[in-house]
């Protein structure tokens, strides 16, 4: 089936540094999402993105977070600066339509902030 690729699969970073998580969505999909899962907790919605703009973001999407998809390339989540509580697995997803009824997820990027 359709694949969403995430790079890197895992990364360890010093607190205060910047990190960029990359997502290669399904090729004809138009809607993109980031979810965050802290160890032992539920996966939680961070943000959705369409036509170059954030449509909705949750309270977890702090000011230090930003997303973009320049020129149809990777859909990225940037955290600058990182904090210890940003340690989590970040899942990217994409969907073809706006109802979000079938999201295709990547394998996740495990971020450890030390």
């Amino acid at each position, binding site marked *: *089936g359709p*694949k*969403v690729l995430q790079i890197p699969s895992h990364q360890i970073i010093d607190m205060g540094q910047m990190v960029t998580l990359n997502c290669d969505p399904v090729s004809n999909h138009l*809607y993109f*999402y980031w*979810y965050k899962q802290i160890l032992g*907790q*539920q*996966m*939680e*919605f961070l943000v*959705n993105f*369409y036509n170059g703009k954030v*449509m*909705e973001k*949750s309270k977890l999407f702090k000011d230090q977070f930003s997303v973009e998809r320049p020129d149809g390339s990777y859909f990225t989540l940037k955290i600058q600066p990182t904090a210890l509580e940003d340690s989590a697995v970040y*899942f990217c*997803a994409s*969907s073809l339509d*706006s*109802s*979000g*009824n*079938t*999201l*295709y*997820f*990547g*394998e*996740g990027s495990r971020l450890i902030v030390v």
Partner: protein
Amino acid sequence: AQSVTQPDARVTVSEGASLQLRCKYSYSGTPYLFWYVQYPRQGLQLLLKYYSGDPVVQGVNGFEAEFIKSNSSFHLRKASVHWSDSAVYFCAVSATGNTGKLIFGLGTTLQVQP
């Protein structure tokens, strides 16, 4: 507020046995309901979804789920499990028309013993 409860963190069954994974949701409106599965080292994959109509929905690999509105439940079932069904199963809910903002449960780890 929307929420999803999967009361069983881990379920162990023997190969060939029947299976039920429980899911209860909290949502005041008409929900969209989903079951996703995550196999080791892979992204989440959609098993099945329910919007309306027949409350019993069929999914891939012989899985089905039944929406019981009076009980706010959406339990996943399979008549006979295979060892390859071992994975983590997530129940999720979204508001009608909501653009990909899924509320996930904690997940249930299914281990199928040979």
